[in-house]
């Protein structure tokens, strides 16, 4: 009854070699009888082989959605549908996993079953933004597949000019470096933004990412409009006995090379008794020494988050890194979390009101100036926001005294 597997000499080359082969997976799906994905995948393999042969892609976009939402399905229609009609519609459903990408096998198997029934059987774990991508769905199957996934307790991810699916590092679930609860923060923010995820109406996309420390395992700094990173304010915790053990283990010269010499701000000295001399005022919380000496060193106890805003890829202006707009904020109590969510909303509103069409937050700030952004958000100017003060005199400073007054007021009210 069913179609023949197309000849795929080029793709077959990708079945060789030790790494798990997606081609083998596609063929496995194509070769399965009695499921819709058998035919879909035969078509898909044909079109993909055609791409390999001609070195061109053959998908075009379109609009496909689910009832009640304005985004979350990436529609794909084939430009070579006449040759490969079985995969002429090959849409992706973006579904948000639990923060930190945790699963039990029951959940995963259930997802597989749904996708076996309604889709191509191909699932990407995960997309670069953090979605589960159910890839390859006919238009008429989108709604039923979605209904079942939604019933399981999962919701649609972002696409288009709205808030996007977030990502977070494993955080306190399995990492001693986590300075705040990445998973809880992720959930608090995203679940307060479902409307902006599902009904995008911003000038352009907006991404949040959550990393528990400066190691940034969630790639937040450059890949999120709003990056929330863990840090600490007091002194790092030092176990000098473990330091001495580490010096012994590496040898003195190597310890100097790998720890003392690599600290970016020369905050570390090695005492003659092989204990560590930490200048916490110079330390920039970069994590390096802590990474090397996992047993001897730890972040301090006064922990919280810093927020960087404006990271993005390259379009129009070149890549941008996020830059600091909140150097430190506690994130422990419920009120702390509420404050964070409120701040995120202010960021979104300001972005919605002030960004130009197809302009990301970082570009907007570059255009209007950081000071105006902070003022718009009611955030206090802080010296940690700059890497250095201005290096040129091209600025009109006749409001100097007024600004000095503001600074002094802020300082004295902080001291109270």
């Amino acid at each position, binding site marked *: 009854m069913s179609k023949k597997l197309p000849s795929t000499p*080029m793709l077959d*080359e*990708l079945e060789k*070699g*030790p*790494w*798990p082969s997606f081609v083998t*997976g596609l063929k496995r*799906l194509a070769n399965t009888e009695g499921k819709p994905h058998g035919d879909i995948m035969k078509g*898909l393999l044909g079109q*993909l082989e055609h791409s*390999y042969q001609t*070195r*061109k*892609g*053959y998908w075009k*976009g379109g609009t496909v959605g689910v*009832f009640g939402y304005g985004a979350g399905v990436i529609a794909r229609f084939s430009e070579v549908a006449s040759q490969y009609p079985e995969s002429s519609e090959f849409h992706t459903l973006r579904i948000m996993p*639990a923060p*930190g*990408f*945790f*699963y*039990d*096998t029951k959940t*995963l*198997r259930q*997802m*597989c079953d749904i996708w*076996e029934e309604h889709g191509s059987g*191909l699932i*990407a774990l*995960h997309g*670069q933004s953090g979605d589960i991508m159910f890839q390859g769905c006919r238009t008429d199957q989108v709604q039923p597949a*979605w209904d079942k996934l*939604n019933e399981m307790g999962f*919701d649609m991810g972002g696409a288009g000019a709205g808030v996007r699916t977030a*990502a977070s*590092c494993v955080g306190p679930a399995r990492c001693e470096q986590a300075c705040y609860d990445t998973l809880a923060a992720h*959930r608090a923010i995203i*679940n307060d933004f*479902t*409307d902006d995820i*599902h009904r995008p109406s911003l000038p352009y996309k907006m991404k949040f990412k959550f990393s528990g420390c400066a190691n*940034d395992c969630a*790639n*937040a700094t*450059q890949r999120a409009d709003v990056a929330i990173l863990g840090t600490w304010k007091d002194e790092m915790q030092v176990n000098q006995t473990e330091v001495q053990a580490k010096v012994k283990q590496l040898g003195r010269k190597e310890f100097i090379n*790998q720890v003392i010499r*690599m600290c970016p701000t020369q905050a570390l000295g090695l005492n003659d008794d092989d204990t560590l001399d930490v200048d916490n005022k110079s330390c920039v919380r970069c*994590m*390096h020494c802590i*990474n090397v000496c*996992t047993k001897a060193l730890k972040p301090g106890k006064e922990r919280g988050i810093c927020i960087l805003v404006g990271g993005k*890829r*390259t*379009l129009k*202006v070149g890549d941008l890194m996020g830059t600091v707009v909140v150097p430190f904020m506690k994130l422990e109590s419920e009120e702390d979390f509420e404050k964070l969510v409120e701040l995120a909303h202010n960021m979104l509103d300001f972005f919605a009101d002030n960004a130009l069409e*197809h302009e990301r937050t970082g570009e907007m700030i570059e255009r209007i100036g950081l000071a105006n952004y902070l003022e718009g958000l009611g955030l206090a100017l802080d010296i940690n926001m700059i*890497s250095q003060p201005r290096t040129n005199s091209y600025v009109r400073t006749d409001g100097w005294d007024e600004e000095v007054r503001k600074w002094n007021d802020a300082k004295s009210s902080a001291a109270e």
Partner: protein
Amino acid sequence: MSELRRPNETGVPDSKQFMHPALVRNYGKWAFHDRPRPGVLRHVSDTGEAVFTVKGGTQRQMDIFTIRTLCDIADKFCDGHLRFTTRSSAEFMTTDETKVKPLIEALEAAGFPVGGTGNSVGFISHTQGWLHCDIPGTDASGVVKALMDELVDEFKNEEMPNRVKITTSCCQINCGGQGDIAINVQHTKPPVINHALVAGVCERPAVIARCPVAAIRPALVDGKPSLEVDEKKCVCCGACYPPCPPMQINDPVHSKIAVWVGGKHSSTRSKPMFHKLVAAGLPNNAPRWPEVAEVVKKILATYKADARPWERMGEWIERIGWPRFFEMTELPFTKYHVDTWRGGRSNLNASAHLHF
């Protein structure tokens, strides 16, 4: 037609319901970790309890059979729990040290290489390519598979100076982001405009606004409204293509592959860095991109041999200097390496710091 169902707008579910119970027990209480062997982490909590994590590489774009196999393994060794990393590796957690070895064997028997921890080469971050995207110049899954075949030993062992994060991207938009090594499509010719289609599908002012160098102008072609590109200005970025498919930027020959190095998101030691162009003009040689693999392997081998412990790719190069990087990797240096974009002057050497 039956009535449509309203969605439950629930957002993301709570992770704890899916987490291995040992992680829930020790949530936020971790004291330290070490790595008993490549591919295995041991996290010890303040309570003294230890959790072992075994990490297996996947192809990310998985068929349901593959996922079910992973589930079988998790059921057998990990009480039915697993997670995925931000780089699509599967992590299996257990408190029972004796299960580590059989778990590794089970994964490898099922074809999942165990590794990707510590100072290894992690799985390559993955984009869509010809499989799904509407604008790709190459295939992400194919490039990643071809490269991982070559790099699997570096995934399985921890022999690099520090973690190596590789990314691929199937167009210059670069959904793969910054990486120690980034392998991205680089177009080398301005788009060829399909004038017949422009009038029909293209919102012209939007496309014109998208161009970073203002190279696109409205034009009348054969009496119909179309666009034209100032080829002297055009930097071949392809940004006009997504909003206007008739701006055909993809070309089987002129869409090439470029290799970038030294990107980094972490603020560890050095501040985060953008990746830097080192090789371009590599052919888009599907299905196995041998020219790309060769460059990547050469860079990795040089880094491995020369960098010091804990130096990320970009940090190593900053120390030894770009002259030595190009010398050791034998890559040619051209005027295209000299930054010409806004603020590019800041990438010139404004000092007497010289590497000989």
